[in-house]
């Protein structure tokens, strides 16, 4: 048995799960657009202010999307017994968990990358360095979802884990957030882009083991 096929199947299953959640891509797009639209109401609509906080708001929306999406992922697996079957597979549960997390990022986090140009425009972000912005949202979102996945796995057996996941994950979001924001400002040449990539890689390296251990624990 090759080891890639379980992971690929897990990825596909999670993809169709995320997609089935409701209305495909319209939903995350609407979500990002909607949360962003709330901002002027809460902080006021002065152009100068909005352009200063605009990108920051998108980062918060991205963090929010990761909490909201991941809350149920592993908890549902635990409740419906799918986790039991996964845990007994030869393929490591860590890789499965990462595959699932990535699938959810692709559906719920990646759309922000696509929307970045539009939002950059509406929220007065600079239009100059779109590629940078998109890369930053991509890498940053990936990191958010990976750490969020760890938090979700850790709280899988807690009945209502929403706030808990947020609280656990927040500290781990900070580096990606800081470097992401700076990358948007400094462009690809700056050191911050390097650091952002490094923190994404680091998350990719560390989170699988953590998720796997947490899920084994949850199944026990």
């Amino acid at each position, binding site marked *: *048995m*090759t080891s890639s*096929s*379980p992971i*690929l*199947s*897990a990825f*596909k*299953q999670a993809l*169709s*799960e995320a997609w*089935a959640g409701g209305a495909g891509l319209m939903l995350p797009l609407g979500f990002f657009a909607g949360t962003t639209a709330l901002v002027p109401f809460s902080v006021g609509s002065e152009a100068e202010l909005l352009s200063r906080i605009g990108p920051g708001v998108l980062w918060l929306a991205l963090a929010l999307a990761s909490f909201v999406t991941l809350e149920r992922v592993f908890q*549902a697996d635990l*409740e*419906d*017994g*799918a986790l*039991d*079957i996964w*845990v*007994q*597979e*030869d*393929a490591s549960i860590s890789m499965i968990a990462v595959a699932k997390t990535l699938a959810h990022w692709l559906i719920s986090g990646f759309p922000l990358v696509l929307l970045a140009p539009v939002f950059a425009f509406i929220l007065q972000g600079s239009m100059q360095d779109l590629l940078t912005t998109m890369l930053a949202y991509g890498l940053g979102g990936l990191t958010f979802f990976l750490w969020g996945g760890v938090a979700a796995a850790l709280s899988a057996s807690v009945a209502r884990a929403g706030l808990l996941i947020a609280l656990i994950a927040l500290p781990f979001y900070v580096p990606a957030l800081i470097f992401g924001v700076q990358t948007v400002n400094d462009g690809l040449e700056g050191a911050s882009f390097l650091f952002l990539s490094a923190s994404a890689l680091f998350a990719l390296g560390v989170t699988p083991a953590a998720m796997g251990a947490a899920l084994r624990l949850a*199944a*026990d």
Partner: protein
Amino acid sequence: MSESVLIQGAHLGAVRGERILFSEVSLSAVSGEIILLRGKNGSGKTTLLRQLAGLSEPQAGRVERQGRHHWVGHTNGLKAHETPRSHLEHWAKVWGSNKSIDGVLEQMAMTRPADVPCRMLSAGQKRRTALGRLLLENRRLWLLDEPFNALDTDGQTLLANLIKTHIQNGGSVIAALHGAASVEADREVTL
């Protein structure tokens, strides 16, 4: 552990809360054997079965398994958005099995609701889908937790026959059961 011993649990023990559920339970299954776990509600059958499956770490003792096994627990392991067909296809792919999914669906008498999302299925249909996983790949050991639950009489006969065939082919089954068993046990372990 000899060649034909598929699983061996020695001196197993479980503690829950401040209660010792069971201790010093030893059991092993060789190929061709049916072992039934018996006991009152809450006596620890599920707990023991999960230890045997490697899902739960024994508080005492150790488990050795030979090869891989199938698991059907109290819960069915179906995702709400899956259909019976997509569920079986998914696991077939994970296990690298090339069994015909249509064949399995037919065998479980699930052809008609094969494309209905699992959250809409009846309790027995969900159970049949989960039991269908047993047919996807040949694994000699089956660990089943009250597998007859929710099945209608046809379904119970069907499952009993599946188990019999599996045993004849050199497989082994460890199952937790209540009441009169539709299959004859080689050994019963009472908790």
